[in-house]
Every structure is written in structure tokens, then in C-alpha cells.
């Protein structure tokens, strides 16, 4: 689920109490700050960072700089958001490349933080960006770390420099030095050095890392930290800062449901920016870290930017335009429906996408219950139809439906439901595409601006004059069905046309055509 989701939930709960209040009293602020403190602690943000953070939020919330234009809840959200962005590193920073190649990047971190996997991801990412990276196996400690890096390198399509077999043998400092020479010779422009994982307290290994650093003078030292780490994050980060003095942080395993408080802690304590986030086991599950987006995510302002980027990357614009046209000309078929669905699937998990929407955090429970296989089933049903059937759904008689159900491993009921849904969607889309308003059940038609008050008076006379409400309604229904112009122009505001039937979409649409829209 969404990163930081749980922290977001907690803060949302906190702010609920603040909503609807006119102004902030010191007591309100104290109560809120306590809740924020608790939420942050639950999210594994280090205690000292929490204290500092809540202190600043409190000070600012009570201070004069509070905007009078915002309500209290908005004010606190604003302040917390500002502070979060400030701690997480303000502006996003990217890797600093050396002026003279090769750029040397060294990876350091605790055991099991995900360094070796990350080395592969980083290499692949750089390779896609027209760099020629070289992976260096300087983790000679962990059994078969070298082999792992070789496999990862192969998967990423990046060469690996591994002169030593590892498993405790060989000198990592020499390996790193040799790698630099090798890279210069062979014109690799980025060198990624994977070092042995170490515990924060292991002085010997820390010294080794520091020796490697001295020997190769890297342009970037990336500290890889597990997003799941607890209060220990601060100690670990400090130990590594003193030991190897890293220049940037990479947050790994952000795809779990860890609340990721470590991100806040490390950034806050060391003042080093978080450069990347690693979000899965695949080599492509790797993205630059955006402090402002992450802060918005915490505050449930939604991660719209990421959503848009994902959509842009995967959505075929040309295709969309064609579909819109089809909507408008009433030639939208089940084939197009299938195409749309497949495009949607390309964008990745629908759950993930929904999770990025503002306010979606509150629906997490429903999101978790959302069954993505429903789409697969729908796909199967459509694929079990003949081309003719997909284009002209009207052909689908009983026996055809039975055949389709059997072919797709579903039931006739499901096929029926799909056809119905398609009909409704097509109708609604058509209306929207033509600039009309889709009809909401129970609301009656929404009159367009063109049918202003001028036309309303004569309308009224056309309505039934019967004193019996039921009869009047029936007569009006008949009237509506017979004369689309009249019915569409008749606003539900009269109390006459407010019955749930109303004119059908087709009528509305043809009316619009008629009016030259």
C-alpha cells in the first residue's frame, strides 16, 4: 500500500478533531502536538527527531506567522507539511556526476539493507540514462555476495568487476582501486562499488569502509537504509556518518507497509538528502525520491504527481483520442472496451494508483478488498466473443451468451452483467463526449444553461393538469417520452418532472444534436 500510509491515517485522525474549529487555542495545539508525537513514534521516527519536530510545529502553530486565511486544521496541515518537507531535504537532489569520468559511487549500509540489489537497480537506471556503469564486487565478507552481484549485474545487463571470489578472502580496498583503473581503461563512466554490510558497532568493518572511501575518493557515498528500521536508525546513521561520511541516503524496502519513519530520522539527524527510494524486488522498482511528494503523501494530500507521471508513461495518447472520437460517434464497441482495460492494466496495479489519489487513504479497507482479478475475468469474457459480437453486442442472444460463458469459464449471469455494464458505460460516455451531463439516477436531467428561465413558463402549461399526483406523473412521463425537447427543457425544479424516469440518454443526446451543440 501507499508509503507512509499508516502515519497518514494517524495524522488524519488527529486533524479530524481540529476541523470545524474557528481558531487555534494553545490547548488545541497541545492536544494535536501530542497526537502527532504519538503518530510519529508509532511510525518509528526516532524520539529525538520527534521531540524536535513537535517542538517546532508547536512553536509555529502558536506563533504569529499563522495565516488568517486558513482554518485551524489547514494551518496545522500546512505547518506540518512545511516542516516535513524541510526535514526530508527540501528540494529533490540528484546524483552529482564527476567532471572527469568515471563518477565513483560507493554503497554502504547495514547487513540486509539491500545494497547488492540496489547496486543492480542503480546500474540499470544509469544504463537507461545513457551511462555506462560498472559494478564492483567489494563485498568479500558475506558468503556469495560476489555471486549475487554477478547475477544481478547479468539481469541488469551491466558488467561486473569481480577479481576476488569473496567469502572472506581478498582485500576489498585493492579491489576498489583496481576497479577504478579498469574503468578508466575501458571507459566506463560510472563505477558503483558494493561494499560489505556491517553493523553500526563493528569498528573493524567500519574502518574497512572508511579505507575504501579514502582509496577511491568517491563522488557519492550512498547510505542504504531499510525503511523498516526502528529507533535504531539514528544511531546507525550517526555511526555511518562518522565512519564513512556518506553524501546521500537511499531508502530501501519502501514497498512494504513500514511507516518509513526512518526516512525522517536519518534525514533530520544527518542533514543528508534522500536521493532514491527502492520500492520492490524487480530491478525496475527504483525511483528518485521526492521530498515534497513524500510529505504530501504523509499528509494524505495524495501523490498526484507520481500518478500523472505513471499515467503519462503508460497511456497511449493517440489511442485515447481515438477512443474519445468513438464515444462521440457512437461506434464504441466491446473491442475498444477491452483495449481500454488493457491500457489501464499497463499502468500497473490499480490499487497502487487509487492509493495515490487524495483522500483515498480513508478507503484503504475497501481498496484492500478490491479484486483486480475482476478485470481479468472481464477480459476473458470479451476475448471469448467473436469479432462480430464484440462490434455488435446486440447479436448476443441466449445461446451465444451460454457459449461465451463456457468459453471464458464464467457464468451467463456474469456475461449478462458485463453486457449491461457496457451498455450503460457506452451511453454515459457518449453523453459526456458530446458535452452533455450524464444522467444520475434519481436526479432527473440537469438542464443546460441554454434552457434558461425564458423557456420555462410555456413548459409548465404543457404539463398535465390532473389533480391526481400519480396520474399527473404518468401523463408527464408519456409527454416526456413523446416530446424530447419539452422533457429535456423541463427542469426538475418545477416539481413536475422530478420523477426518477426522466428522458433517456439517447433523447438527451438527440436533443443536443438537434440544438446544434
Amino acid at each position: 500500500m501507499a508509503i507512509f500510509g499508516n502515519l497518514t491515517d494517524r495524522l488524519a485522525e488527529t486533524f479530524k478533531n481540529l476541523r470545524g474549529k474557528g481558531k487555534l487555542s494553545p490547548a488545541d495545539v497541545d492536544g494535536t502536538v501530542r497526537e502527532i508525537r504519538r503518530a510519529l513514534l508509532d511510525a518509528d521516527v526516532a524520539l529525538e527527531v520527534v521531540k524536535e519536530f513537535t517542538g517546532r510545529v508547536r512553536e509555529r502553530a502558536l506563533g504569529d506567522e499563522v495565516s488568517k486565511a486558513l482554518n485551524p486544521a489547514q494551518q496545522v496541515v500546512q505547518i506540518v507539511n512545511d516542516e516535513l518537507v524541510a526535514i526530508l531535504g527540501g528540494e529533490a537532489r540528484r546524483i552529482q556526476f564527476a567532471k572527469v569520468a568515471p563518477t565513483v559511487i560507493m554503497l554502504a549500509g547495514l547487513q540486509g539493507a539491500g545494497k547488492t540489489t540496489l547496486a543492480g537497480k542503480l546500474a540499470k537506471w544509469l544504463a537507461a540514462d545513457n551511462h555506462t556503469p560498472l559494478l564492483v564486487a567489494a563485498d568479500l565478507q558475506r558468503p556469495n555476495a560476489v555471486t549475487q552481484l554477478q547475477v544481478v549485474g547479468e539481469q541488469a545487463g551491466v558488467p561486473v568487476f569481480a577479481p576476488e571470489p569473496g567469502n572472506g578472502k581478498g582485500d576489498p580496498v585493492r579491489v576498489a582501486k583496481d576497479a577504478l583503473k579498469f574503468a578508466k581503461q575501458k571507459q566506463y563512466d560510472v563505477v558503483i562499488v558494493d561494499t560489505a554490510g556491517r553493523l553500526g558497532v563493528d569498528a573493524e568493518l567500519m574502518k574497512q569502509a572508511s579505507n575504501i572511501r579514502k582509496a577511491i575518493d568517491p563522488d557519492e557515498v550512498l547510505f542504504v537504509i531499510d525503511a523498516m528500521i526502528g529507533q535504531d536508525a539514528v544511531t546507525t546513521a550517526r555511526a555511518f556518518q562518522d565512519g564513512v561520511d556518506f553524501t546521500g541516503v537511499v531508502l530501501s524496502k519502501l514497498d512494504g507497509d513500514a511507516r518509513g519513519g526512518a526516512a525522517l530520522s536519518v534525514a533530520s539527524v544527518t542533514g543528508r538528502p534522500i536521493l532514491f527510494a527502492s520500492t520492490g524486488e524487480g530491478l525496475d522498482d527504483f525511483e528518485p525520491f521526492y521530498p515534497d511528494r513524500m510529505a504530501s503523501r504523509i499528509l494524505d494530500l495524495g501523490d498526484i504527481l507520481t500518478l500523472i507521471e505513471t499515467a503519462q508513461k503508460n497511456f497511449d495518447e493517440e489511442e485515447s483520442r481515438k477512443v474519445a472520437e468513438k464515444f462521440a460517434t457512437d461506434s464504441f464497441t466491446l473491442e475498444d472496451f477491452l483495449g481500454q482495460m488493457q491500457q489501464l492494466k499497463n499502468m500497473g496495479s490499480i490499487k497502487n494508483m487509487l492509493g495515490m489519489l487524495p483522500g483515498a487513504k480513508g478507503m484503504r479497507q475497501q481498496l484492500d478488498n478490491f479484486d483486480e482479478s475482476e478485470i481479468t475475468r472481464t477480459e476473458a469474457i470479451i476475448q471469448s466473443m467473436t469479432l462480430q459480437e464484440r462490434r455488435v453486442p446486440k447479436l448476443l442472444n441466449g445461446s451465444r451468451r451460454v457459449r461465451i460463458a463456457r468459453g471464458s469459464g464464467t457464468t451467463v449471469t456474469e456475461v449478462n452483467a458485463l453486457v449491461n455494464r457496457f451498455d450503460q458505460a457506452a451511453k454515459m460516455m457518449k453523453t459526456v463526449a458530446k458535452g452533455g451531463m450524464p444522467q444520475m439516477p434519481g436526479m432527473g436531467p440537469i438542464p443546460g444553461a441554454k434552457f434558461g428561465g425564458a423557456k420555462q413558463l410555456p413548459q409548465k402549461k404543457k404539463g398535465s393538469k390532473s389533480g391526481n399526483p400519480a396520474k399527473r406523473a404518468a401523463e408527464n412521463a408519456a409527454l416526456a417520452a413523446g416530446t424530447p425537447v419539452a422533457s429535456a427543457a423541463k427542469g426538475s425544479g418545477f416539481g413536475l418532472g422530478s420523477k426518477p424516469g426522466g428522458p433517456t440518454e439517447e433523447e438527451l443526446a438527440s436533443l443536443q444534436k438537434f440544438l446544434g451543440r
Partner: protein
Amino acid sequence: MAPSWSLSSALKGMFARKTIDDDTWSDLEDALISADFGPDITDSIVDELRASVAKYRTTDPADLQRMLRETLEERLARLDPTLHLSARPAVVLVVGVNGVGKTTTIGKFAKFLTNYGRTVVVGAADTFRAAAVEQLATWAERGGAAIVKPQAQGQDPASVAFQTVELAQREGIEIVLIDTAGRLQTKSGLMDELGKIRRVLEKQVEIAEVLLVLDATTGQNGLAQAEAFIEHAGVTGLVLTKLDGSAKGGFVLAVQEKTGIPIKLVGQGEGINDLTGFTPHVFVQGLVG
């Protein structure tokens, strides 16, 4: 290097004071939170201690230290940490999220068992991570255990597990340790895969223990991990690794209390002999001092 934080050193200053006052309580709260006990357990411990201090009308911080030790010990000792490995073969499934030290733990555990004269075979059912099989092979060799490797890259882990148990039954090997791929508890597909391994094994023998390996540096997310693994893999015991770091492992109490699963083993170093059984008394001694 930054001095490593430890609960005992944080408490030392506190207990050296003359009387128990408001500062003591807030310091105690901070110390417990810093040790990853989590806000809930911290509140409950502090409340309990406040009550005892009021009951015995003591003002001596030394009493408080003793009470804290007793409270923690009592809470940790509520569950039975004995490993049940009497079945033959005794099948132990080792599960956990990525990077907690499952493979290492298996190596140490194999050594631990061979030291007691047991014959051990390990099954490399982590067919996912690059070079995991080789890593396990190295550990198995060090631990003096036989190993069953997958015949092909990406083979179904359940089939590797099956073959391992088959081998044990055929050759009369006493204990079977199955290594599984690390998986985040949020990946439901992978969690289902664990369920499958379990079902396949249960057709052959009864599974003796399912051990969940937890990294002692993990924060409150350890709870979510434990809950998910209990649901999908039927965890019977916890293994705590990386206790030798500057980690404080306070969250273990939170996990144990909330899930009702006992800690059975603790790993305290990188050496092959650094895995021991769990004794609440020793653990608390190390934690509180």
C-alpha cells in the same frame, strides 16, 4: 564513531539519582521508546511501575530498576521458549522478510544442532534471490549439514522443500531446515506461496516448527510482519537476529505480547556459534543491566 545507545546506559543515569520524581518517569518513558518498545507497551509498563511504586511507597530508584527488570522478565517469560524437535524428521520452516538474516540463521542453527550430535539437512527453497542457494551452501558446509538444491533456476520452492523432506526420510536424517525466500508481508502472492509450501510439507510429515526471523533493529513494523506471517505460515516461534548491533530489541516484547508467539532463538553475532536459545533472564539482564 558515535557512542552506541543502549537502554542500560540510558537507565544508569536515571537510577543513579537520589529519588524518584517526575523527571524519572519521563526519562524512563523516553528510554523505553528509544529501545523500540513502542508507545503502547511503554505506556503499559510505565503505568504498571507507577502503580507498584505507589503500592510499596518507595522513593529509591534502585527499587525501580529491580521492578523494571522483574516486570520485563515476567512479561517475557509468559510464553514457553522451548523448541519442539522430537518428531523424526523434525521439519523446521524458516520464514521472514528480506534481509533479516534467514539464511545466516539457518547456517547457525544447523551448526547449533550438529553440535548436539543431530544430523541435519537444509533445503534451499529460496529460489528467487540471486545467489541465495550458493550462500546457503556455504553456510551448510560450515555448519556440517547436507543440502538439497533446486535443480533449475526459479524452481517451485515447494518442490525443493518436498525433495528435502523426502531425502531426510530416505536417509534417516533427523532434522530438516527449509530456507525460504524473503518476502515482504504485503505481497499477498508471495505469502500464498508460503501457504503452499506448508501444505505440501504437511502431506509428508507434521511440521515441527515454523520460525519467523525478525531483525532486532526493526521498529514497530515487526508487529505487522509477525501478524502477516502468523496468518499465512502459522508461525510457532520467533528468532531474533542482529542483537549484537546497537539494536535494543525492545519491540520483541511488543511482538511477543501482541501475537502470543514465544521467542525461541537469538542470534548475537556473525560467527557461526553465535546463535543461542532464548532465556528471558539473560535477555533482560542485557537490556536493563
